[in-house]
């Protein structure tokens, strides 16, 4: 897949590369958001972009999420392919109406496609507190017409962003802040995409299906290593796309293992894990050999202080405990 001399690329660099390559490939692609121009974005994803692509393809906007998401929708309808940066995913709440009412329903209502991507840097583990840590994906999961993706590796980050930009629908791209500089790998030289709607088995296993996404994937793999020593063989399914869900991949894994853990960083009640669980018990009930366990954050805002946030976030131990429980079921 890659040559030995290639360098490792971080998750964040993978995102930059995808943007850069797509902007070079397709002049309809342009970026807008807060402080993405000369500053290069709060996380420096678009550093140097304005110099390279010009002021009108990398636009610093006023501080107005609804306004600039709406502008992206309008531009998308005119045949552009805007990529919006939320400074933090938390602020997407300010653009909620434009996303759910306008972007999501537009094609259904009158056939006008909205090929737009919203990049949403999300997630905790960086001591951001209640307003800079949120995992808001479930807010949009109940809105037909949207696509949601949430990569866990640099490879997927790059390939999914390219696929999102080429998609003719509004896609929210959840990029996990915790992974930005922590996840690294060597990427292919050549152009590739990761198709939207396809999950990926990150670790094959026989005993238990662990279904997850985002920053929980490395955590799940870590747990799997430990459980291997206990002869519990975890299969780790990385959803990658949250909407539309890859139902077949989920069910296929469950049919094999008969036991399921669903894991996400977002709070439990009403999280995407609920849907996964419901799908399984609806379509795979006869294969189940135990309860479908969910591991998720407790139902609170994300607290700031380190001991609180540590308590809040799902941990390797939680996976171990659940897996051991299921193994003896």
């Amino acid at each position, binding site marked *: 897949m890659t040559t030995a001399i290639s360098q490792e690329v971080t998750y964040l660099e993978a995102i930059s590369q995808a943007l850069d390559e797509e902007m070079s490939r397709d002049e309809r692609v342009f970026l807008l958001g807060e402080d993405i121009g000369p500053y290069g974005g709060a996380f420096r994803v678009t550093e140097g972009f304005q110099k390279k692509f010009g002021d009108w393809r990398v636009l610093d906007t006023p501080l107005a999420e609804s306004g600039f998401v709406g502008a992206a929708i*309008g531009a998308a309808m005119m045949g552009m392919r805007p990529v919006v940066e939320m400074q933090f995913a938390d602020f997407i709440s300010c653009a909620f*109406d434009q996303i759910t009412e306008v972007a999501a329903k537009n094609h259904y209502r009158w056939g006008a496609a909205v090929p737009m991507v919203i990049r949403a840097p999300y997630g905790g583990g960086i001591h951001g507190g209640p307003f800079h840590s949120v995992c808001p994906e479930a807010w949009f999961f109940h809105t037909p017409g949207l696509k949601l993706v949430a990569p866990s590796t640099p490879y997927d980050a790059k390939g999914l962003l390219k696929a999102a930009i080429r998609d003719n629908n509004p896609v929210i791209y959840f990029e996990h802040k915790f992974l930005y500089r922590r996840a690294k790998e060597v990427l292919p030289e050549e152009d590739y995409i990761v198709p939207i709607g396809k999950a990926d088995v990150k670790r094959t296993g026989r005993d238990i299906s662990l279904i997850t996404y985002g920053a929980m994937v490395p955590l799940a793999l870590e747990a799997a290593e430990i459980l291997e020593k206990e002869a519990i063989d975890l299969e780790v399914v990385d959803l990658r796309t949250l909407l539309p869900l890859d139902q077949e991949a989920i069910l296929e894994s469950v049919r094999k293992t008969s036991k399921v853990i669903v894991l996400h960083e977002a709070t439990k009640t009403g999280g995407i894990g609920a849907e996964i669980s419901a799908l399984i018990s609806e379509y795979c009930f006869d294969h189940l050999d135990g309860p479908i366990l969910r591991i998720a954050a407790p139902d609170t805002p994300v607290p700031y202080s380190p001991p609180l946030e540590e308590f809040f976030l799902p941990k390797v131990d939680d996976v171990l405990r659940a897996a051991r429980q299921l193994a003896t079921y």
Partner: protein
Amino acid sequence: MSMDIERRESPEDRRQPFSKVSKADYLQLYYYLFLTRTLEDRVTALYRQGRIVGGVYTSHGMEAISVGYAYALEAGDVIAPMHRDMGAFLIRGMKPKEILAQYLGKRTGPTKGKDANVHMGDLKRGIFAFVSHLADNLPLATGAALAFKIRGQSQVVVANTGDGGTSRGDFHEALNFAAVRKLPVVFFCCNNQYAYSTPLELQMGTPDVVDRAKAYGIPSEIIDGNDVAVVYVTAQRVIKHAREGHGPSFIECKTMRMHGHAEHDSAKYVPKELLEEWKRKDPILKVEHALKTMGYADESVLMEIQERVKKEIDTAVEFAEESPLPEGPETLEGVYAETLEEVHV
């Protein structure tokens, strides 16, 4: 609220607008005004007969605004309309039969039964569909204008809003963005003095909506929204301004909502005298008077146009009534745009 159209300097074209409108255009404007009125009256009649299931919002008495601005646009331009812009739909090429099919929920309507009444859109005709959530269309208008600007095209976007819609945050965010980036977009506002039952003084702390535009440094004017020549000539001027790269304008059209908010609403909260006063300023009366005064048309010419319109609407109603309803499973179609199809120019 008293109207004070003359408070600001009015350019020449506003004092004698008709002198700038050719006879052919004037007659065409009359045709569209009358077409809009007749079409909407027919929709109202159908509503009263219980043949329209959803709500009906008309531009009755306000037709000059959407007719005037739309007539000033060119083929590649785009409109982001509000809910009382029937004239603009017609001028942009939406056929009465399609519109009636839409009201009847037929498959032959522009949304194939998916959406209701004035929620029609058609990119090929440069029409963004109205979004119920008021002011949501205004950021979209800035985005379309931005696309034109990025691509170096000379097209222009016209967005329209009611007075009520200007209180929403999206109005603010859109106008600000348009101003900062000097986008080729013109904002019209139909100030019909009410938002549903809420009179202007409970909506804003200034007498005129146009005061809002000052916050953005957007040039603005108040005009008589019931005079189609005034609207048309003003629209021409500010659209040209935008087309030539000088950025957005804001035009407040003073007018009056002559029906209820929707056809179910008897609008008892509106003082009778106000309605009577505005009835005398009816845009169709105004244009008929002007046409006669200018010697552009006599009664028989007008009658001829009226007859033509009535026939057109009769045929359209027939088409709509005979059109098939969509079938249940069509519900499931169209949530996503095809991934591989290149849908845009």
